[in-house]
Each structure stands twice: as C-alpha cells, then as structure tokens.
C-alpha cells in the first residue's frame, strides 16, 4: 500500500513539479529547488551533453541528463526503550549516478506507519518513564544495513507535544548514511514534564544534508605580498605635523610664556601706579582688592 502510494507520489511529482500530493504525510524541507525546475521540465531520454563536472555537491546547478536516476527505498526502524527494533516507516529517495561514477541521494520522501495499539502502549510507557525512543537506519542504502546501523534516540517526552512531531536530518556521503540528527523541533530541557500526545499521528520533517566545501585559503600573489613586506619595512610612518609631534612641549611653554607676560604686564602697572598717584586709583584698588584675598588664605 505504502509502496504503491509512494510510486504514485513520484509519478505525480514528476508530472506536476512542486505540488505535493495531499496524501503525503511528509512535508519535506526542500533544499534543492533548482533541480526541481530543471528536472520537471525535461523528459528523461535525452542525449547527454558532454559535461565533465567534478564536484558531487547536489546543490550545484547541473544538467540532470548526465546522470542516471534510480529509485531506492530504505526502512526506518524504531525501538521503545531497550526493546528490539521493528519497522516504523519507509524512506524513498532517488539515487543519481553521475557520469564520473559518484552516486548521490536526492529527493527524500518519508512515509511513516501509524502506531499500532501495542506501540501506543509502549510509547506511553516510555513517556511515563522518561525513557528513550530510538530509531535506526542502515548505514548504506544500497546494501542495507551496510556496515552497521545508524542509531539515534530522543527522550520520548520531547516528541510528545500537540501531536507527535519529529525532525530527521540525514547526513549522507554518496550512498552512505553517516548520521541522523533526530529530534523534536521544540526545546525539552530537563526536567521534562509528562504530557500525552493529543493525537497519535506523526508529523515528520526530513532533510538530506551533504558535506560542504571548506572555504579556500585566500592566496595573495607573491608579488603583492613581497611588495607589501618590503614596503612595510622600508617606508617610515608618515611624517606627522609639527603640532602633533611637539604639542606636549609647546603647551607648557605657552603657559609659561603667558604667565611671564601677565606678570610682566602687572609689574609695570604696579610701578606705574605707585608713580602716577591719584589718577591711577581704580587700578590699585583693584590690585588691593585681589591681593588681600590671597593673603587671607
């Protein structure tokens, strides 16, 4: 049933790109929409233009015909606490084989089987005991389970919100699955509260992730580097202005000069006042007015 449904889904999808069948439970976060556009618009049997791309990053824009597609499926298994694993759902994806031999997974779909009554019970047990709900995936999608299963687990109480909501981020390398980040979208810090889900259907989000390239080390040409180094050594710091250099000497000097000038100004006045007598009275009065103040200190 599920198989039929997903086949139907793929055909539907190929015909009308973008629109998702309402029969789907999965609402995938779409990363590579560029591919969608190209893929959907073209029929499959086209002579491949001779393109030799060297990278396998799926997010890169490329002509899809250089690669052949095949559809593969792998199962998700789950376990309640320490119980044995049992089948819980199906992932389907398209396996692209590039002209240079590399294979990548794209367009992941997920359909989850509904919990049976027994499983519901088991899940409720987990919720009560704040125990782990565990899932596993094969580490190789072509020859499952590959070397070993990829296991991930989450506290059951984290999943139970309004409904059951889960996130899968599957890290792949070619046809190998390295790891799966599995968990609920929201936070669930310790201590977690017991809360039974309102409805028993899973809302699943899936995402495929591949490795990203590290940024290249910036390479400056030798010339520039050498030039800079030599310049750095040879060229003296730009000449500063006279003021910038000697302000610390100039300011005190100025102060001293001003001081001396005022004193010099005062001296002749005083002398002049003594000689001039009456006409100069206001001036001396001012002088006396200030001086006693100083003395009283």
């Amino acid at each position, binding site marked *: 049933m599920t198989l039929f449904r997903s086949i139907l889904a793929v055909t539907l999808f190929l015909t009308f790109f973008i629109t998702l069948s309402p029969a789907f439970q999965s609402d995938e976060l779409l990363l590579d929409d560029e591919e969608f556009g190209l893929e959907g618009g073209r029929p499959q049997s086209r002579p491949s233009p001779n393109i030799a791309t060297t990278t396998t990053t799926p997010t890169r824009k490329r002509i899809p015909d250089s690669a052949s597609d095949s559809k593969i499926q792998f199962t998700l298994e789950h376990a309640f606490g*320490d119980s044995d694993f049992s089948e819980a759902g199906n992932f389907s994806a398209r396996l692209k084989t590039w002209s240079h031999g590399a294979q990548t997974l794209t367009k992941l779909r997920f359909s989850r089987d509904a919990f049976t009554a027994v499983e519901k019970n088991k899940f409720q047990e987990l919720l009560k005991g*704040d125990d*782990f709900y*565990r899932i596993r995936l094969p*580490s*190789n999608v072509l020859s499952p389970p*590959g*070397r*070993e*299963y*990829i*296991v*991930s*687990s*989450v*506290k059951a109480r*984290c999943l139970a919100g309004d409904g059951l909501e889960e*996130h899968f*981020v599957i*890290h792949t*390398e*070619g046809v*190998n*699955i*390295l*790891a799966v*980040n*599995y*968990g*609920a*979208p*929201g*936070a*669930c*810090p*310790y201590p977690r509260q017991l809360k039974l889900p309102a409805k028993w259907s899973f809302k699943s989000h899936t995402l495929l*992730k591949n*490795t*990203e*390239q*590290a*940024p*290249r*080390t*910036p*390479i*400056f040409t030798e010339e520039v*580097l050498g030039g*800079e180094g030599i*310049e*750095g050594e040879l*060229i003296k*710091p*730009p000449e500063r202005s006279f003021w910038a250099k000697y302000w610390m000497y100039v300011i005190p000097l100025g102060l001293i000069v001003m001081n001396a000038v005022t004193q010099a100004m005062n001296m002749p006045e005083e002398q002049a006042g003594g000689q001039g007598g009456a006409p100069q009275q206001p001036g001396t009065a001012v002088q006396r007015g200030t*001086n006693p103040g100083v*003395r009283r200190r």
Partner: protein
Amino acid sequence: MAMAIRVFLSFLLFLSLTNLASSLYEDQVGLMDWHQQYIGKVKHAVFHTQKTGRKRVLVSTEENVVASLDLRHGEIFWRHVLGTNDVVDGIDIALGKYVITLSSGGSILRAWNLPDGQMVWESSLQGSKASKSILNIPKNLKSDKDDLILVFGKGCLHAISSIDGEVLWKKDFAGESIEVSHIIQSPEVIYVAGFVGSSKFYVYELDAKSGELLKNNHIALPFRTSGESLYVPDDKFLVLDDARSKIVTININNGDINYNQKQISDLVKDSSGQAVILPSRLPGLSALKINSQVLLIKVTNEGELAVVDKIDNTAAFSNALSISEDQHVFAFVQYEDNKIHLSIKDVNDWSRDLLKENLVIDHQRGNIEKIFINNYVRTDRSHGFRALMVMEDHSLLLVQQGEIVWSREDGLASVVDVTTSELPVEKEGVSVAKVEQNLFEWLKGHVLKLKGTLMIASPEDKIAIQKLRLGSSEKSKMTRDHNGFRKLLIVLTRAGKVFALHTGDGHIVWSITLNTLRKSEDCKHPVGLNIYQWQVPHHHALDENPSILVIGRCGPSLSAPTALSFLDAYTGKELNSLSLAHTVARVIPLPYTDSTEQRLHLIIDFNKHAHLYPRTPEASEILKHEFSNIYWYSVEADNGVIRGHALKSNCIHEVVDEYCFVFRDLWSIVFPSESEKIIATVTRKSNEVVHTQAKVMTDHDVMYKYISKNILFVANAAPKASGDIGTATPEEALLVIYIIDTVTGRILHRMTHQGCQGPVHAVFSENWVVYHYFNLRAHRHEMSVIEVYDQSRADNKDIWKFLLGKHNLTSPISSYYRPEISAKSQSYFFTHSVKAIEVTSTAKGITSKQLLIGTIGDQVLAVDKRFLDPRRTLNPSQAEKEEGIIPLTDSLPIISQSYITHSLKVEGLRGIVTVPAKLESTSLVFAYGVDLFFTQIAPSRTYDSLTEDFNYALLLLTIVALVAALFITYVLSERKDLQEKWR
C-alpha cells in the same frame, strides 16, 4: 591613492603587531619562567676519563638522546635529541676523540666531536632487511692507522672508516638467512657468528682489509636453542637449549667448530627456575640467572664449565672493565635486607673483593636496573672505582666511595600526564623578627632597584639586582599566594613515579614511586595512564589536604588489570591504593562532588560496565539523583564509529553491585570506511570558564556563541592519505571535519577540505575550534578556525524584548533542542608543522585568548586568537578596525618575539598544559617533553596588577619629595606674605 591605503594598512598592521607581541627583555628571562633539561633513562654509558681534564660520561637514552655528562657534577656538557623514530642502538668512542652512535635500526652512523658535541660526519647505511644492529669499535688500537668501525645493521656488515665515515667495504648477509648475533674483530680477520633457524650455528670468517669471505663454517646442534647467545672471549659462545636445561659451549678454534654441553642440574642442585644468560660481557666467565640467584660460571679454554660462585639477590651486573693488560674487573649489586652492597671483583682472581661498599639509596628510587663502572687512580696509587647506576625510576646516580656523588631525576624526561594542585593556605602568626628582617630586605632591595632605575648603580649593584630578582624567595614559598601564581605541578612519569614540582622555580617538592606501578611478578610492564584531581577542599582548605588520583595499568593492552592510587598532594603520601577487579578503558570525572568534596569518577571498563568511584553510599545517592543526565561517548577509531552512551541500570552479577552500571548505546555515527578514517578527536576542557555568551559585532549586532560542554571535534582523512605527507596525491586526499553534539549525536557542522591531509592537531575552546593540517595542493601547512554561533538566540536583540521579558536568554539550554547553528570558517597558511597546540585559560575567561603552538623546532609560539578570526577581511571598515579585526592575510605571521620559550628549546616537546592563575590576566603554561619549561603569560598584558618589578621605592620617593616640596613652598609663601605685609 591605493598605494597610500596600502601603506596605511601595513602601518596599521605594524602597529597592531607591536601591540600583540608581548615579549621579554633580556633581564626578565628566568624571572617567571624556568627550564629544566633532562636526558631520559640511560641505555648505554661509556666513560671517557683518560688523560683529559674534563672527565665525562657519554650516554644514550630511551628518549633517543645522546649526551655528554660531567662526571663530577652530572651536568650536561652537550646533548642531542634525535628524532622519535631515530632510536639509538649503540654508542662508543672511536679514535679517542669521536663519539660514534648507531641509530635507526642500524642504518645511521654518526660521529660527534667529543669535547663540544659537533657532528663530524654522518653515514647512512643501506640494507635490505631489518635485523639486529651491532656496533663494534675496536679497543686499544693505535690511533695512527685507519680504524675500522664494524656495523651490522639491516642484514649487512659495513666496515667504516672512523676518520671520515666512508664505507670501506660491505658484505651482505641478507641472502644467507642468518641471524647475526656476534661480530668479533681480531687484527686480521673478522668473525661473524649467528644462528640459522634455531639449531644451526654459522661462523663466517672475513678478511678485515677487504671484507672478502675467507671461510664459512657451521655446526648443527642436535637440539633447538633458546636463541640468546653470549660470546665469551676469546673464542667461545654460550647458548641455552630451548628447554633451558642444558648449557652449550660452542668453541671456534681456527675455523673448527665444536660444542660441549652440560646439564644445568649438574652445575647447581636446585635448578627449578628458568635459566637466563645475563648479557654481561666478562672474559672467561659467564653469568647465568636462575630465579633470583646468579651463577658465575668459568669457561676454561677446553670449554669446560665450572661454577665459581653463587650470588643471591642480585640486582645488576656490569660489563667487564679492563684496568690493566690482564686484569679485568666487573661489578654487581646485591640486595640484602634493605641494604645495598656494591661489589667489584676481578674476573680471574675470584677470592678477593677489589671493592665492597654499602650504599644507602632512597627506596623511592626503586631497584637498580643497570650499572656501569669506571676506574680511577686513588691518591695512594691503588685502583678506585666509581659506578653509574640507572634506577627503576629512570634516575641516574654516580656512586663513589660508598656515597652518591650526584643524581639526576631523569624520570622527568618522560612525563605522561600533568595536573595541578593549590599550595597550603598561609597560616596566621608570622614572627615580628621575620617581618623586620623582611622589611629591611625589602627596603634594601628597593633602594637597589631605585639605583638601577636612576642609572646610578655600580656593576656590583646590577648583579645584586639581577640576583635579587631571580632568587626572590617569594616565588618558591610553600604557601598559596594572592595571585595564584604558586601552585604544585603534579606529574606522572612513564616509570610510574609521581613528582610534585613547584611552579616558582621548578624544584621537586616531593616524589613517590607508586607500588602499584612497580614491576613485579604479576605486573611485568606497568604503565601510568592518567592523573586526576580527586579531592579539592575549598570549605576545609585550612585543615584538609587535596588529594590526587593516579591510574595505572599492567601492560599496554586494554584488558590488563588496573590499579588506582590516591595521593596526598602536599606530602606525596599514598593514602590508599586499590587493585581493581575490572579494567579501565576510560575515566570520566563527573561534575559532582560529595560532602567531603571528593569528585565522583566514572570508570568505563573493557566489558561495557561503568564503575562509580568513590564507592560510598553517598556517592551512589548523588549519582542516582543525576542518573538520567549522564551521557558520554566513545570513539572507535579503527572501526570508524562514534557512539553515545547513557547509564541504564545496576550491574547484576550474583548480587546487585551498587557501584557498577550497565549502559546502553543512544546513538551511533558510522563513517564510511572506504572514504574516511578518524585521525583526531578533540573536546573542550571540562574546567574551561566562558565569560560571556554574547559577542557584540561591529555593527552593534549581537551574536550568541554556541557554548556546550558536550561537543566533539572529529577530523577524518581519506584512508589513502592517512599516512605520511607525500604518500598521497592531492586528488586522493581529503579531510572532513565534524562538530558533533555528544549527547544526541547530532552533527552540528560538517565540512570538507579537498586535497588536505593530516596529521591534524586541534584545540577546542569556547565556541571555536582551531586545527592544523597539511594542504597538498598548496604544499603548505594550514590552520583553520571554525566559530559556531547559536542562531536560536539571535533574535534577542530588541531592547523591548529584554524589558518585557520576552527573550529566551534565561531559558535553559538543552541538547535536545533542535540546533540552529551558523558556523563561520576561515583558513590561513602556517609555516611550521606542529607538535602540540593549546589555548591559554584564565580564571574568569575575560582575557583574550592566545593559541600556544608547539612548533617542530621544540619551541612554544603564542599566536593571538585575533589572527585566527573568521571575520578578517581584506579591507576592514573603520568600525571593524576599532574592534581589533586585523586585515586579512593569507598566512599567519610568526613574530619572533612571541615565542614564549624565548631562546630556549623544550627538546622533544610532547605536550602543553595551561592553568589559570587567580589573577585574571595571567595564565600559567607548562610545556613538557624531554625538557620541562614553565612560564606565566598574560595574553592582554597584566592589566590588573603592577608588574613584579614595579618600583615602589621610586613611587614612595616621589611622594615624599612632593610632600617636602609642598611644605617648603608653603613656608616660603608664608614668609613672602609676611614680608609683603610689613612692607
């Protein structure tokens, strides 16, 4: 214009560099740092005492060091540390002026000048197959003719001129399938002897001049032999049969080979134990060890064997030393109820002891493992002897006249793990006299310093000042100081000895050889694994001593039995020791302590059980409370799998064991074995302090650091490119970097470096990781940085949100939160290859960080973290410049002033440890290898304290002068005023 900008930028760069380089002045060397030189456990020793003023002993050690030591004081005249793969096989003296060393499995022969250790020549010897390597240098030959050095290595016999190291002739034995074990040189012929298989004994006779094969003879013994054989001069070999019940004498006489055999039971009545031939070379004698008894067997010229003596409780035998034409002596050491007897006897005259001395050796040094003897002429013209002893704790002693003349703690050349401990708190009640004396000293010191500052100090004063600065009694005090500079460094050595070193001057405060880590019957190859802080009393710091946990194992395999030892950190006394019933695969110090402040430790064993220590009900109760919050991970590097674990329930053996738990696997990451191989994993230091989570960007924007203790950095290389650099092409090479949350097993970040390969050295701190690798495309080493930021908190920028409390900053962080992460990354070229990499750590984490890089030249380079900032751009804006962003360059600068080891080398550097001081600006750095080096560094200068040599006297003098000036001017002005009034 562009030119001007560039000039300006380079000027800015220059300015920023001068800011960053926190270098030392010449007279500050040794003020806060110390450096100790070691050589390691001695393997071979050759004395050189004839007709020289300086008497020396030449040694080669297990740390691949060739050194010349002063025989009077034990100091190092010169020393060469050969590479880690360049194991020294033999050392000897040729022509009386060259030290010849054979190393690297018999493929490199070097001659060093005896007085100064300069290399004279080096020969690399080619050979086709690995074999035992033998260095044979003829003795007592006249040095006027061209002496031959015979070297057997890699299946070839080489004759090498000792003058220039030229290979004179070469004879390949690779095709003969002979295991050459002896080379005997006589003036004309050379005998090469050895076994083919285990029962055929071959002797080849070669011409010494040309290396031509003169004769080839062999004998087939009718039984299998044990393999080890001993040459007894002049022409006999001793072998044991493989049941070790018969002793066989093989006689080579003028090319004829014959053999005699004798049952060991005929020689000694009680021969129940395993017989072993001791490899001491004694003319006409051989030593056979059965249990703890040694039989000395005389081999007569006819090949007859006769027991000369039996010696009980022997520890070590020396080789024969010829003191005159026909007098050969040897030494042995005997243990007799806590006493050590050193005896020296003549090989031929057995009845007389040339020397018999009782020795007192600290029992912490363990047993005597090797002994080398040397003779000298006493004042009364008789023969005197001195002995060089290698002890179980790898220390080296020189014994003469029954006393230890000098000793070297060479166990410290092989530090395995380091931890620190605080010193005792200073007790109240210091005597007045002491204070007065201190005050006087203090004043005197400052007056001297003042003289220095004012440049009126005489040369003697200058010396006194320097001495005062270096020998400050403050720094080697045995109490805690206010700044937290004084601590104990507790180091575990490969010999199983624990040392406590004072950070002030590096002296050994205490040392202890752990009984659990000593060689014994049931523990043949004990190894010290780790050392942890077990108990750190804060509440009872005055009356309780901190303690240390040492973990050791018998043998290198994971399944070997394990032992724990608990030591008092102040006295070094062993408080307790446990021999564990289980193995140790991993030790996890938990972040919980019990009421006596003992830290809880979880020991994961080989059989997937977790054991809780201390085994007290209280600890069990604490763990029960946190039971569901304990997660850890394990890395299976060979398998390419990382797993996460959590505790499940108690173990159920016959009874429920309360301190043993089973655990379950929560998650697993399986790397594809055909394309990736784990080569490095790094986590954050568990005791690291992060000051703030927020990082304010240039545009007044806030980024939140993703700070989690449960984070793991993994570096994977392509399997083809996991070998040495140069073995893979750039197309094959690939380096994949992961940042993984270890609670949920989520890959937070994943990145590929094309055309790069290991070895990867990395350090993880706060929210960033810096790693070093090799870029094959650029033919250079690179360092990359990844900074991880938490996006889920990124929208907490609105002030109104803070005021209304609508932010999520106070919400607890959980690993079960879906990570929203942004990672920034940048790579830079770096010139050096790296041996170790560390980051400074300070008490509160406020001070900016420096990376400490142990370079290939065995120095430690401090690189500011600002150089490894992913936000560096080519033309930073004004605001970015203000923030301190350095313009982008393609390579990291190496500023010679920022070597924290200044002019010194930490030979054979293996690790760097940083410890925060109490003073926020300062971090303590300990680098270890063959040498030890310790210093304090302040990455942002000591902004929170005055420097050690701050001149208080000058400050005081200035204040006094100012006050005096104030008074004088006051008096003067008063007087002037009075005069004014009276005018």
